[in-house]
């Protein structure tokens, strides 16, 4: 399928190369100070995210952009100085670095040619709109003006990383958000190759790298593939979260010694995982425990005297990891409380009356009691069953991933049978399975206590909530397999390599069986985005008729919320009022017993609301006859201009203390 050449003459396409160059320089700098080539991209991405998040929390987000530029200039200077003046030999970047750099450039060019656009609900409700908010207002989405509070309780890592790529120049570009997420993925994928670097096992690195690149397809295909596959074309945080978790595990398992340089990638990986999504902290804790147990029990057998010393080292390691997680999570929670005072459960529109910290105890209490509620039995029973029978993934149900991980670990044992290594593989197998049980319970708890019952009973987004663990689980197992290969003998290495090639080939075949080539990122046709382009243009025309300082009330009867999110996103920086959620004229009120009730809005209540919220215009996307019957009196012309298709826009005016909606007719 021919690639459409889109010649864009603005600077905003070059800015992404500037940011990418900064990133590459940081990768090289990390590599020079002693981090492995394959782990350096993770460190670079992690440090960029940390700098931007910190500056964002301090209310000075743009400062971060200049700081990173400054840091990369200094790095170049330092590298040149080291090489030319100090005459020290620079470490040559290994294939991990090249995989990241060449892969990154390829993705940038590919996405520049394809110019993808947002199409999914969650891209409009948070992940996409969030990154646009950052660019439009140069501040974190928590303080940026937008009509809906829900966005303020998610985590910033991907959004600030997207801001980093769009830092220079004005104007927000959707496709560049895709670049940011894909480069994030690439940086985390590279970590798997870490243990092959020392022995330069490029023969084994190749199938592993290809397998990594294919993994997004494996996890995204739980949706009906009659639409463009989201692999590499999605800004949702679930897959990046899984990869960040996996990268953290790989950063640990690549190393056998725990010096300060070696634990830096692990700590940055933990911070990234915690800051990518709200469930990230649980994954980070699992990674921390697995790493600590591995460091304690599976390290090289030592002499008795140095055991004391080694305990000290491992304890420091544990403290460093715990500090990273707690600082990242706690710091962000503190920031949220200081700026908005919103808690997660309240804003997610849930009926939860239980805080996150109490959830595990309540869950255990109900699990062990003999008096379980029907809801509890149903949810837990179905969750247990789904693990085995819900074929929502390309490879089958969840149990397939468990078998795959254990299979890869079994392969590692076959290839390399030395005692310390075998201990490692077995402990990973058992530990990660236990970690999975905790994770799965956490998701079950979310369905029980956080999500609304109507969402819980349909197991909304079940596959998407669970798979981050599968991703990391697989990455950890593959990293251990790679360590087995790098330590083994010729024939076993060859067998391991063939095993990897076979696995990659099988997955490639499975993907090609299910995904039509024109629905992949390589083959997607620009026509697929015509709908969005058309919508964007019509909203641009709408905004041209609006007051930039104004606020618009949104009427769209029967909308399920997506319409509101899409208009809100497209209209930014023009403000769209929350408008009771856009679909129905019903206000959500938290009643005295904690439950949420929907109260129908009367015409008088709406009049008061329009004045109090400061709306200057009312935009009607679609008004049902019920709406017209009930609220038509507030309109000067009783909505005839709307029904005659003369206008969708009404101005909010006040006459003798009453609100009158005057039609703003289109000038043809």
């Amino acid at each position, binding site marked *: *399928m021919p690639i459409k050449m889109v010649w864009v003459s603005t600077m905003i396409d070059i800015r992404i190369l500037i940011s990418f160059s900064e990133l590459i320089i940081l990768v090289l700098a990390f590599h020079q100070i002693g981090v492995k080539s394959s782990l350096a991209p993770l460190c670079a991405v992690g440090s960029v995210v940390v700098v931007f998040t910190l500056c964002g929390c301090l209310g000075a987000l743009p400062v971060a952009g200049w700081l990173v530029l400054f840091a990369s200039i200094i790095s170049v200077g330092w590298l040149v100085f080291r090489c030319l003046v100090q005459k020290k030999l620079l470490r040559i970047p290994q294939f991990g670095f090249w995989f990241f750099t060449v892969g990154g450039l390829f993705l940038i060019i590919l996405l520049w040619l394809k110019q993808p656009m947002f199409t999914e609900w969650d891209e409009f409700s948070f992940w996409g709109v969030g990154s646009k908010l950052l660019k439009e207002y140069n501040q974190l989405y928590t303080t940026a003006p937008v009509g809906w509070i829900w966005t303020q309780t998610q985590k910033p890592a991907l959004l600030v990383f997207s801001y980093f790529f769009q830092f220079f120049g004005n104007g927000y570009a959707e496709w560049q958000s895709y670049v940011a997420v894909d480069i994030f993925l690439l940086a985390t994928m590279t970590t798997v190759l870490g243990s092959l670097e020392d022995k330069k096992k490029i023969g084994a690195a190749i199938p592993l790298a290809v397998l990594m690149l294919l993994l997004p397809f494996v996890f995204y295909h739980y949706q009906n593939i009659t639409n463009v596959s989201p692999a590499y074309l999605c800004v949702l945080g679930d897959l990046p979260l899984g990869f960040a978790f996996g990268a953290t595990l790989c950063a640990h398992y690549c190393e056998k010694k725990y010096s300060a340089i070696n634990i830096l990638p692990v700590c940055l990986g933990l911070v990234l995982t915690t800051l990518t999504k709200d469930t990230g902290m649980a994954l980070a804790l699992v990674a921390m425990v697995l790493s600590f147990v591995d460091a304690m029990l599976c390290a090289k057998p030592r002499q008795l005297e140095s055991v004391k010393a080694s305990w000290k080292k491992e304890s420091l390691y544990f403290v460093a990891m715990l500090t990273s997680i707690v600082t990242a999570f706690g710091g962000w929670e503190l920031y949220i409380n200081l700026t908005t005072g919103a808690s997660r459960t309240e804003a997610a529109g849930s009926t939860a009356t239980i805080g996150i910290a109490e959830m595990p105890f309540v869950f255990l209490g109900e699990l062990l009691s003999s008096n379980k509620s029907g809801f509890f039995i149903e949810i837990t029973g179905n969750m247990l069953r789904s693990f085995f029978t819900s074929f929502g993934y390309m490879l089958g149900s969840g149990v397939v991933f468990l078998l795959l991980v254990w299979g890869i670990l079994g392969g590692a044992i076959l290839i390399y049978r030395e005692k310390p290594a075998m201990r490692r593989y077995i402990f990973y197998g058992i530990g990660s399975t236990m970690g999975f049980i905790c994770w799965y319970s956490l998701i079950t708890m979310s369905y029980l206590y956080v999500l609304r019952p109507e969402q819980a009973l349909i197991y909304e987004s079940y596959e998407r909530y669970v798979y981050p663990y599968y991703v990391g689980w697989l990455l950890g197992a593959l990293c251990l397999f790679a360590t087995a290969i790098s330590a083994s003998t*010729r*024939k076993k*290495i*060859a*067998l391991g390599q063939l095993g990897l090639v076979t696995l990659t080939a099988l997955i490639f075949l499975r993907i090609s069986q299910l995904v039509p080539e024109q629905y992949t990122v390589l*083959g997607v046709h620009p*026509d697929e985005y015509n709908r969005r382009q058309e919508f964007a243009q019509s909203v641009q025309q709408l905004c041209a008729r609006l007051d930039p300082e104004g606020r618009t009330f949104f009427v769209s009867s029967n909308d399920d919320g997506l319409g509101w999110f899409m208009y809100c996103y497209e209209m930014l920086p023009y403000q769209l009022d929350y408008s009771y959620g856009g679909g129905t004229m019903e206000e959500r009120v938290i009643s005295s017993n904690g439950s949420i009730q929907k109260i129908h809005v009367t015409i008088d209540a709406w009049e008061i609301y329009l004045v109090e919220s400061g709306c200057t215009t009312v935009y009607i996307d679609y008004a049902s006859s019920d709406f017209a019957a009930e609220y038509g009196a507030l309109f000067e012309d009783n909505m005839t201009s709307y029904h005659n298709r003369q206008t969708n826009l009404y101005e909010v005016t006040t006459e003798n203390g009453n609100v009158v909606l005057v039609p703003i007719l289109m000038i043809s």
Partner: protein
Amino acid sequence: MQKHLRRNNSFFLRVVVLYLCALLAFLLVHFAYFVQNRLAYASGILTQQKLSLDDFILIDMEMTEDGSLVCLSTDPQLIAKDSSIVAENLNFQAEYTLPPLLVNVFWADVGEVHSVRNMAYETDSAEGLFLLPPGGAYSLRIDPGIQAENIVTINSITINTKRDFGFFFIPSGGELALLLFLPSLLASCIEAVMCLLPKRLLDKNTFGCLDADKDGVGQYHD
């Protein structure tokens, strides 16, 4: 005297050679398509033909007095009455009152249903041109847009317009994936197989096993 290349260098060389072979294979295969195409025209299997509106069944579309079509829903379709047309491309020229947003041509073998797996988008270089897999006789379906109340005035529907030489060498998404991944995977595979050879054969072959000197006990801690 045997040339003493560093084994890593020879591996890279092998990878580059395999990529060149893949590129060559791609060019050869597509050149074969070109030759097959021209032969088909020469022997009369493929002939450029103009189709009229009478050759199609209208789904969710209605004919107006002046000959144009009104779309009644967001999924208007034109299905060719002849379910076995030998065509390798279709040129659909039409005018619309609203932008159609997405125009596709579907093909189906005898007895199959039209699906998104067998769907062509407009080529970028030639407006209105849709490519079909060569060598088949299909039931064709044209979806002229996804806008309800769109008025479509069809100027022409032509099959088998002769395509230029350059047209035959644009890779599809799947071919691109194969070109990117297959040569390196193959190199890795071959290297692994070579390493499984007994030691005495290893010294003789120039492909190079990167771990030729690692026959002993594996080293976990160096």
